[in-house]
């Protein structure tokens, strides 16, 4: 006689799960509208987005912390309260996240291994922080395992990797010159899985939530740029969407942080704003519940969502000054914008667009 076993009930879909809690599909439609708006999806896609979420099951997520400050986790979790914005936590099962999980020690590591076994080939690995590789990776270890080994071990059966923050995406501050630990981004060490980069120091919470929700709903990766960033959030520069852009067009600039131009809210280009070369959504999504973003607070963009932003020659040096690792067309275009106003500004924009142009990326391909 075969042993008697009780089959576990199939995991409910997200729609069923919400329904059991008395939450109607309107909540998902509203959430899809919200994410669709921030991702600039066509309005016609909203219903399909909502239906996809309703029919999906919770996505297992293993979140790894490496060389980082935990600011990305703070951005992801603290931006939310139990309203529309928090619905991402209904969509994912955070099976391992050292910052938040109650378990510690061996129990914590067992949770990671169990999630990997239970969801083999289906789980998403979120990487926060750079990975030190020098001297065998001894500069950062967890439970006696180097970050490099933990990454390789965890990723081997994953569906995809999401690198959150500039450290995981591009190496960030750990990789800054002289990079004493040989730190590198996730994409340097993960070569057989799709890697999506969500850079920023920290990234905007909606960029992380929107990317994950898109993957859950549509079952595919969002369209990525040449640096592996979702175009929905990194398709335009801060400068393109900046409310101070008209001042740039008119050639009205702050020359210092305490001059008349600064008081009048003029463009911060000449005091080092990196908005023209920085692809991110800060100017539209903003921070702190949509309150403002750095330029709105009177400080130029640092360019934190671009590779090696820490080593670009100084946060207060204008882009028209010589910049390390940035090509002549960009510096020249910036100088022309200062000198010639609107016409040159559009020339600069075209240069920048050319810089960001990339060949179409195969769906599901590596970054």
């Amino acid at each position, binding site marked *: 006689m075969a042993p008697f076993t009780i089959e576990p009930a199939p995991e409910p879909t997200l729609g069923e799960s919400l329904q059991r809690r008395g939450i*109607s599909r*309107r909540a998902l439609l*509203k959430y899809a509208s919200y994410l669709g708006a921030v991702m600039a999806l066509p309005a016609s896609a909203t219903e399909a987005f909502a239906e996809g979420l309703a029919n999906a099951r919770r996505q297992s997520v293993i979140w790894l912390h490496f060389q980082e400050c935990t600011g990305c986790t703070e951005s992801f979790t603290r931006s939310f309260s139990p309203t*529309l914005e928090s619905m991402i936590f209904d969509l994912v099962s955070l099976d391992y996240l050292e910052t938040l999980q109650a378990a510690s020690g061996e129990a914590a590591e067992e949770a990671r291994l169990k999630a990997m076994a239970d969801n083999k080939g289906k789980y998403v690995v979120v990487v926060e922080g750079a990975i030190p590789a020098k001297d065998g990776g001894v500069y950062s270890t967890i439970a006696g395992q180097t970050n490099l080994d933990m990454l390789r071990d965890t990723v081997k059966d994953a569906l995809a990797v999401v690198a959150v923050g500039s450290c995981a995406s591009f190496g960030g501050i750990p990789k800054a010159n002289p990079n004493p630990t040989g730190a590198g981004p996730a994409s340097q060490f993960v070569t057989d899985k799709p890697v999506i980069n969500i850079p920023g120091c920290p990234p905007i919470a909606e960029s992380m939530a929107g990317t994950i929700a898109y993957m859950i709903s549509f079952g595919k990766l969002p369209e990525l740029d040449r640096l592996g960033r979702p175009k929905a959030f990194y398709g335009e520069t801060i400068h393109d969407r900046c409310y101070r852009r008209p001042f740039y067009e008119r050639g009205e600039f702050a020359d210092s942080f305490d001059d008349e131009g600064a008081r009048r809210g003029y463009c911060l280009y000449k005091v080092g704003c990196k908005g023209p070369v920085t692809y991110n959504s800060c100017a*539209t999504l903003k921070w702190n519940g949509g309150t403002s973003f750095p330029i709105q607070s009177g400080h130029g963009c640092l360019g934190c969502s671009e590779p090696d932003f820490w080593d670009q020659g100084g946060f207060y040096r204008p882009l028209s000054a010589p910049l390390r690792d940035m090509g002549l067309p960009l510096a020249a275009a910036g100088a022309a914008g200062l000198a010639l106003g609107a016409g040159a500004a559009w020339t600069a924009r075209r240069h920048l667009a050319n810089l960001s142009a990339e060949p179409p990326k195969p769906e599901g391909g590596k970054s």
Partner: protein
Amino acid sequence: MNAPPAAPGLTGMADAVLSEIASLAATQAQGGGPAAVELTSMPLTAADRAEIEARLGRGEVSATIESAGRSEIWETAYSGVWFVRHLGRDGAVATETIEICPAPKILFSHPDDRRAAAARLSEDLREKAAPAA
């Protein structure tokens, strides 16, 4: 060089957006499908947003939805042109969309919710009808 804004905070974007809405409404009136203009991600100033809202005005229908936060929906003074505003944390505006359609989808109940509601209603009636133990 651009001309200075006509009024404080107005960039001219409101006129452009209203023109687009008018064009979409005309298409809809001639049998076209539903359309929408998403305001949230546009580089609009607060004055631009207020201008769009004021010039579209208010019509006969308004509704509020309490689901994952509050939503405010109203038909503008132009039939078939709806203003849909979803609020998020602390009542902050999460999205603002102008929908050009007979009625916004979010006002309709979803078939799955209707099925669950019908079953729940029947169950509630059965429980009421059952004799007390």
